[in-house]
């Protein structure tokens, strides 16, 4: 099997200060960056901390910056990086807690703020069965429901870095997912939430979030949809009075 000597340079936030550690080991074909980190933890330096869970790109734990770009460590093959020197650092635009672990509390709080649940004026009873939703209606929002909340888009977005209150791509995409859902009736509650100074108007369609998104959610597209929805909603309100 193909083997290669690789060097991992890990930028760690260890005991409240930044440092860089170099680890050299043999990588084999098929090894992901996450496998590499586990190899380091198991064989070289057990004190190295990072988040990881499903190792199949669906839990969103292992987002980190690999050679300057935000990626999921579990879904990135070492041999595909095109270099034997791999620089790893925690996600930028978030506070580092230890080593590669960064603070996600604020990220999830923003997600909570957009009311990411189905809002109904009247709930159907269980006995009446499911709401009817055709495959076409499902397709309208399915893409946005694939977000795994890995936080890569918050690293890529320049506004989440400069404005700590900006809801950010993932939360806005989540709002869009519910607004586009044919079963949802929460427009009146949700659109005002996402259309103020901290909402979709902070997005200038840089579209870096969509480029780093590992699940092809295309949050940038979702935010532009939100802007149009908000415009129509506002015009309606202006003329109603």
């Amino acid at each position: 099997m193909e083997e290669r000597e690789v060097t991992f340079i890990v930028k760690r936030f260890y005991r409240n200060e930044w440092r860089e550690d170099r680890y050299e080991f043999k990588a084999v074909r098929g090894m992901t960056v996450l496998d590499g980190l586990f190899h380091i933890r198991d064989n070289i330096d057990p004190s190295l901390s990072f988040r990881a869970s499903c190792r199949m790109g669906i839990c969103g734990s292992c987002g980190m910056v690999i050679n300057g770009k935000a990626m999921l460590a579990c879904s990135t093959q070492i041999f595909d990086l095109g270099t034997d020197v791999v620089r790893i650092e925690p996600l930028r635009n978030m506070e580092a807690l230890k080593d590669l672990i960064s603070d996600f509390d604020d990220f999830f709080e923003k997600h909570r703020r957009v009311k990411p649940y189905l809002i109904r004026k009247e709930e159907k009873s269980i006995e009446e069965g499911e709401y009817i939703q055709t495959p076409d209606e499902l397709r309208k929002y399915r893409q946005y429901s694939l977000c795994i909340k890995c936080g890569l888009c918050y690293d890529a977005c320049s506004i989440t870095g400069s404005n700590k209150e900006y809801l950010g791509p993932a939360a806005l995409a989540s709002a869009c997912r519910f607004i586009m859902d044919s079963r949802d009736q929460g427009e009146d509650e949700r659109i005002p939430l996402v259309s103020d100074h901290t909402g979709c108007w902070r997005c200038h369609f840089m579209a870096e979030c969509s480029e780093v998104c590992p699940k092809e959610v295309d949050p940038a597209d979702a935010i532009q949809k939100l802007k149009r929805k908000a415009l129509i909603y506002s015009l309606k309100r202006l003329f109603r009075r």
Partner: protein
Amino acid sequence: MEEMHTKKVLEPVWWFFQIITGILLLVLVSLHLYVTHFASEKALDYSSVIGRLSSPGFKVLYAVLLLAVVYHGINGMRAIFLDLTMSDVTKRIVNILSLIVALLLFGYGVYLLANIG
């Protein structure tokens, strides 16, 4: 409360104007550059400038260009400032200052238009 509400209603409108003025500027600035630099070698002579600015057609055209460019520029700068983390008070200061600067610029432009030619 009422003010918050109006802001939320207007913010999308500001965004839409930004796009409209942008497209408008694309046309008007091209026209402006064509007229002042490419149409004739004498386009920037004092007499031809005064001549252009004396015609009511150009006056209206330049007034629209002025409005669009001031809006687009100042609203763009406002967005750049609002992209920073700031308190609600600072946000309001940014909004008010933007409005004042925009009015001053526009007012001065109108003053020039009225006094030339």
